[in-house]
């Protein structure tokens, strides 16, 4: 049964989901410290109608077109969320919830229409919901890897700028950093990571790949740079292992397996993490308790 892993197409797919995981883990750190983890979920769901509309307009399943459609739709969702937040009393999380459900609902409705129309069933658009990495062809893989690498480069090259933008935006603006520019760039890399991931992981679960790795990484380090590295590592591992396992059964969706492995990493980090893990906290408390008791006894004598 492992022979499936050895075919060249599988290796390519594996490679692409690993790079996707690295990108998601990296960009996820930005979203985590921007306190916008939910944003990635909303934008991922918001990309679905774009996929279907692109398919309806061009009547063919070309990944470039579908990704472009997804990107336009997700960006539109981002703009709506910003507009709602700025011009009404509705808070950001409510706005995100609204956009998520409205866009996703529209996407599912359109998808149903497409599937009932002639030839629609063969389109395989359903795979965009839960992800089907095995369905990717060589050119899809290249597109994914290139876009993911560009996103990662943007974060790595502007490391110092991202740090100050996330930690203290007011101060950043004071020393000449354009907050508007950074906001645009942030939304762009986030949307890019989401849309290249929806074919492999699906619109529902791609957000998990962006949200979980940074949270796991947080348990291991107190440095922003190391957190980025670890998060990328966790994301890459989850992407590769999840994909490998999903190829073992025919028709197994990739997304759920990737998320499953990301979650296992999280639970492991939660318990064993050396900075904030449960075990370390417990051990340190016990140690302090013992010292305090010894001290009390010493005073008692």
């Amino acid at each position, binding site marked *: 049964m492992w022979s499936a892993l050895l075919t060249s197409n599988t290796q390519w797919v594996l490679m692409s989901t690993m790079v996707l995981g690295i990108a998601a883990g990296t960009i996820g750190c930005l979203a985590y*410290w921007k306190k916008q983890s939910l944003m990635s979920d909303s934008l991922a769901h918001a990309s679905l109608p774009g996929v279907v509309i692109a398919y309806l307009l061009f009547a063919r399943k070309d990944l470039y077109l579908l990704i472009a459609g997804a990107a336009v739709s997700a960006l539109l969702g981002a703009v709506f969320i910003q507009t709602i937040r700025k011009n009404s009393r509705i808070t950001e999380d409510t706005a995100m919830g609204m956009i998520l459900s409205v866009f996703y609902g529209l996407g599912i409705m359109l998808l149903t229409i497409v599937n009932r129309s002639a030839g629609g069933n063969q389109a395989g658009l359903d795979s965009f919901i839960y992800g089907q990495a095995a369905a990717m062809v060589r050119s899809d893989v290249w597109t994914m890897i290139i876009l993911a690498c560009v996103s990662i480069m943007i974060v790595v090259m502007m490391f110092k700028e991202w*740090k100050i933008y996330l*930690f*203290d935006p007011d101060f*950043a*603006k*004071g*020393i000449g*950093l354009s907050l508007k520019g950074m906001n645009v760039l942030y939304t762009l890399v986030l949307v890019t990571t989401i849309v290249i991931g929806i074919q492999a992981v699906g619109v529902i679960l791609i957000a998990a790949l962006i949200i979980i790795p940074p949270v796991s990484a947080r348990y291991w380090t*107190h440095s922003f740079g190391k957190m980025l590295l670890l998060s990328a590592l966790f994301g890459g591992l989850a992407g590769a292992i999840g994909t490998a396992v999903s190829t073992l059964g025919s028709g197994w969706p990739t997304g759920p397996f990737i998320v499953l492995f990301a979650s296992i990493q999280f639970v492991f980090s939660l318990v064993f993490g050396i900075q904030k893990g449960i075990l370390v906290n417990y051990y340190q408390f016990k140690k302090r308790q013992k010292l305090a008791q010894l001290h009390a006894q010493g005073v008692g004598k």
Partner: protein
Amino acid sequence: MTHSALKVVNLAASYRKNKVLYDVNFDIEAGSLTGVVGPNGAGKSTLIKTVLDLHPALTGEIEFFGLPFKKAKKKIGYVPQRGSVDWDFPTNALDVVTMGLYGNIGWLKRPTREDKEKAYESLDKMGMASYANRQISELSGGQQQRVFLARALVQDAELYFMDEPLAGVDAATEKAIMKILQELKNLGKTVLVVHHDLQTVEDYFDHVLLLNKTVIHYGKTETTFNPTNISETYGGNMLWITSGKENGHVVSSFNK
């Protein structure tokens, strides 16, 4: 002709329906140490934020040393309120201070060893050298404030804005901060401080700006900071008690 450090003409700002500032006019002398004083909700923080283009102005013109904000950016240092950032962010004290140099380092470049040394010196000046590698989440409130101040010092600005640097810090930190502010003033820098404690205004500042949605009074502390002006700023229910010269002034408020 010498320009004043900060010139504000006819400034107004609002939050949604509430007019927070209107008709604000003042001229800060270069080399002065000014306390911005006023009741809660008087718009003290908003004034600083609007001047620094962090909050949109409805009307008004602002000049720094005769220049618009964009051209004067490098001459301006800002110390935000301590609560405005998430101190759980994974970084250490030295790193936060180094952020003050980012503008000079240039975008996309990494801080060099020299930059780190500069930041370290600045931390040392605030008595925080031994905390350089400490996680910022593990610093006390006063220590966090000192880190923020060290970050502003390292910017080597000409004009400093500080939003309540003395709020909720202990006596030692307050003393350390005031010492630095005096030093800045002696170096010819201009400092504007939002301040809460009326009892220390006379000791700390040479100029005072009494603010309540607009400038009520502005001038030298000894002439401006008097009972009439203060009660005018704070509304009628401030009682000014002079309880003997040895105790200095005690201010209290009461409800009718």
